[in-house]
């Protein structure tokens, strides 16, 4: 074996090793995304077919009232889920960062919901929020007869119960990320600020939180795609009900494609979801990669 061949082999070996995996994932991720795109321009009903109908499925999609409900729900849910999740997670992280006792135990308790699947979370909250079984029933049992918390069965409020369950599940995870970020901040800066006479809230507001920017971004990215893909939580908690008051794009897509024999319409809604995710992720990746090159 010549040494030239050996160097060439050494150069090519890693690429050869990665190639099958790369080819597979390329075919099954991007290939299927492309196929879904093709289907969204077809007249597919029960089974896929390739009769080209142009933008008809997209027109039908945006004429559908249920899709509008799903989009509005996605807006409400994403905004609150990300906003409240970030705020609560940061708040918990700052409290835990005060060098308290039993921090490890508390951290585990707050982080634990993340270990559950959304199905379990949804089912548990479904019982907690059910007016006849859970919270309302309990408080009334204590003698507060007029207490009412029936959001779960109220079509105008049900989406907020999804937010409650979602935030409960993810706040601990956000807390852990921020806590790691806080631990990464150099103590010397904080000490210097204290010597300069800055109060603790001011130090957090002006120094600590701004230096957590990268953590903010990565957390935002994770929460954003969780909220756009949210399917199992809604299914377990409300199954899209009452009526279709808590329908989300993902549950809409599933219902259309797999139970109502409208694969074309489902594919169109999936494409819109992909575009939504891309609109968030692509600029972020672009800025990240550009930053790496600099």
């Amino acid at each position, binding site marked *: 074996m010549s040494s030239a061949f050996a160097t060439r082999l050494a150069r090519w070996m890693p690429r050869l090793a990665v190639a099958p995996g790369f080819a597979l994932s390329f075919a099954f991720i991007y290939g299927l995304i492309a196929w879904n795109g093709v289907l969204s321009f077809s007249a597919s*009903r*029960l*089974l*896929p077919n390739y009769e080209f109908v142009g933008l008809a499925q997209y027109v039908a999609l945006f004429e559908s*009232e*249920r899709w509008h409900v799903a989009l509005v729900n996605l807006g409400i849910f994403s905004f609150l889920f990300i906003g409240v999740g970030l705020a609560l997670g940061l708040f918990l992280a700052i409290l835990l960062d005060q060098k308290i006792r039993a921090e490890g135990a508390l951290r585990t308790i707050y982080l634990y919901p993340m270990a559950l699947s959304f199905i379990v979370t949804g089912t548990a909250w*479904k019982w907690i929020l*059910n*007016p*006849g*079984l859970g919270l309302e029933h309990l408080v009334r049992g204590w003698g507060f007869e007029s207490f009412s918390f*029936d959001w*779960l*069965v109220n*079509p105008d409020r049900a989406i907020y119960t999804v937010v409650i369950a979602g935030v409960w599940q993810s706040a601990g995870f956000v807390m852990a990320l921020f806590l790691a970020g806080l631990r990464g901040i150099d103590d010397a800066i904080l000490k210097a600020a204290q010597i300069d006479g800055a109060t603790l809230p001011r130090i957090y507001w002006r120094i600590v939180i701004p230096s957590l920017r990268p953590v903010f971004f990565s957390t935002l990215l994770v929460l954003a795609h969780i909220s756009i893909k949210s399917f199992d939580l809604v299914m377990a908690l*409300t*199954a899209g*009900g*009452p*009526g*279709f*008051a808590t329908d989300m794009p993902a549950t809409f897509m*599933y*219902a259309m494609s*797999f*139970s*109502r*024999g*409208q694969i074309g319409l489902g594919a169109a809604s999936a494409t819109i979801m992909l575009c939504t995710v891309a609109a968030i992720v692509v600029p972020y990746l672009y800025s990240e990669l550009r930053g790496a090159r600099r």
Partner: protein
Amino acid sequence: MTPTRTTTRALHIAAAATLFCASLAARAGEVEVLHYWTSGGEAKAASALKATLQGKGHSWKDFAVAGGGGDSAMTVLKSRVVSGNAPAAAQIKGPSIQEWGNEGVLANLDDVAKANNWDALLPKVVSDVMKHKGHYVAVPVNVHRVNWLWANPEALKKANAKMPTNWDEFFVTAEALKKAGLIAVAHGGQNWQDFTTFESVALGVGGADFYRKALVQLDAATIKGPTMLKVLTTFKKVKGYTDKNAPGRDWNLATAMVIRGEAGMQLMGDWAKGEFIAAGKAPGKDFLCAAAPGTANAFTFNIDSFAMFKIKNTANLQAQKDMAAAIMSPEFQETFNLNKGSIPARLNMDMAKFDDCAKLSSKDFVATAKGNTLVPSIAHGMAVSSAAEGAIKDVVSQFWNTDTMTPEQAMDRLVAAAKTK
């Protein structure tokens, strides 16, 4: 032993095995069946069918897909059909049979139908559902009646109320039950349950002709007419007699409320009877069954059936035809329906072994088939395409759940939903 010799030996074994399997297949067929008969009574009935086929020398293979309430099974079925590897039979019903038929993947069963005289044994309304472009492609297993009212006699006695026969009486009874401190109507807030109630109201208030025009033919003028207004108002009035915890409740839990006497009545198809029977209750004594208010002379049917797919293997083809014939045999229809709470799809069956509710159902089935008041159930996928059905269900559930929505708004949305293609 050299490597080459190992390979040749392996090849020999493989060839022998292939030949052996092929010879088995040539002697007897195999039917692969996609079904959801998993509960106790249904499983018993399925094994009866299996035994019948094994008696003819065929083997039975369950096409089981876990979870998803049938949706995931359908998804797997689609992928199998697209890849040219369809099972022999699958539990598909109503207009979905037509949808599959349009894809050109269903087998023609006309020879079996002719040999067994199906046209004479099935009411035309039923055989029309089983045919695609005039050819039999599916076999009916049973007939469920959807427009039933179930009640707990103890609860009625406590409230000093009687079993209602029309909607005015229904609300009198419901009011009395409410005053007695009971939940008047046990309901589960899922869209098909909302619609089961809705279609019983539509049939009771508007009659069979209105029902057909508005909900089967989806005629816009009828959907916006005065009768529909009355139907929607009555339907919404029922909601006042259900409890606040109904959203998301499963139907069998609602039935359990009637069984335990927490609730007085339930509007539900005759699969609810299976729950009563399983709880050791006797019809007429521990629970009452009657046609939903105002629908005594009509019948909304929900028929389970098996669609047969085109398959290539000739031995399996024979097994498939034998299965189709066995499903329509009086023995199987009796065994299966005794277990499931439904009635046989065949006309002129001996109903001696069935209970009073089933006898009433059977009598009405024959009478309504003659009187043209036998109508398909929309809630259970018997009347319109799955896309339109879903859209209409959405509107009805929304109207049920949204107190600010007027019947007029609901009618406009129904017209829009009915246009879903």
